[in-house]
């Protein structure tokens, strides 16, 4: 019996693993925005501005993952 051969993109597996961190990070950012708005509703505007900056910086890692999965994920295949 031959061993099972897996074909496909290793890059997508790498992206799936890499998306754990930014997923948790973005959830933490907006969780703190929700909590801060609950404590002090008038600070909502300033908090949302910072939240979007933090979101883009955290999301960058996940996006780099999906982009490089397409670029480097097919090495070793014909």
């Amino acid at each position, binding site marked *: 019996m031959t061993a099972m051969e897996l074909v496909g993109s290793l890059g997508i597996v790498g992206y799936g693993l890499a998306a754990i961190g930014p997923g948790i990070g973005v959830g933490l950012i907006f969780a703190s925005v929700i909590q801060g708005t609950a404590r002090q509703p008038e600070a909502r505007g300033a908090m949302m501005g910072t939240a*979007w900056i933090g979101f*883009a*910086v955290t*999301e*960058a890692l996940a*996006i780099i993952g999906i*982009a490089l999965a*397409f670029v480097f994920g097919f090495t070793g295949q014909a």
Partner: protein
Amino acid sequence: MSLMPLEFEAPGVHSFDLPPFFESAPWFDKYMLQAILSVFVIMAFWLIMARKNALVPGKAQYIGETAYFFVRNTMARDMIGHDFRRYLPLLIALFSFVLVNNLWGIFPFTLLPTASHVGWPYGLALLVWLIYNGVGIAKHGFFGYLKQTSLPSGVPVFMWPLIIPLEFVSNIIVRPITLSLRLFANMFAGHLLVLVFVIGGEYLLVHGETIINRVAGVVGLIFSMAIFGLEIFVQSLQAFIFTVLTAQYISSSLAEEH
């Protein structure tokens, strides 16, 4: 029922390889054409805004003033501090250039964000890197700037061998890489998502074997419009983030020791 091979060519990295318009000028492809057009559009916009100045603004003047005040208040003044006017033209130019070049991705005749070709974000990040390092060196001197960058104040001496390489790599090497890759990857992945929905939807609709495949194709094509809406949001956000981070890097280069 046996599975038949698809004649479907999935969109991938090859979808972004566009040939030049003329063989004699290999640098003049669609990306370069969009960038040159964006320069004319931006210059026309800001020149018109700088000229017509009624005291009670009309609608067009209000839009231009809102854009200017947005960059000046949120990005330049709050981040850089009292010396911000020297860097305001740079920030406005960067914001306008990145925004217009991103928006070419949803404009009907071009439908390709310029930053999805990796050389364009690399060039912009190189410019920002030269500027924030140059500003820091001009203010603190070469070794003073290195000291200010790699060594936050108040760190005990035994932690210096750990902190100094870490801070140096993080501030001088990683910053331009993440700045460029953030912009590139967002534009690349967003455009690839649009391509998957449109090309996949079209293939399912036209070449679909069963009725459920064709309905799925129609749903895919309709949903691609929602993806376009998401792309507008992501492109604007990425232009904003690029400029905000440039202002932040300039501000931290200029920061005084406490």
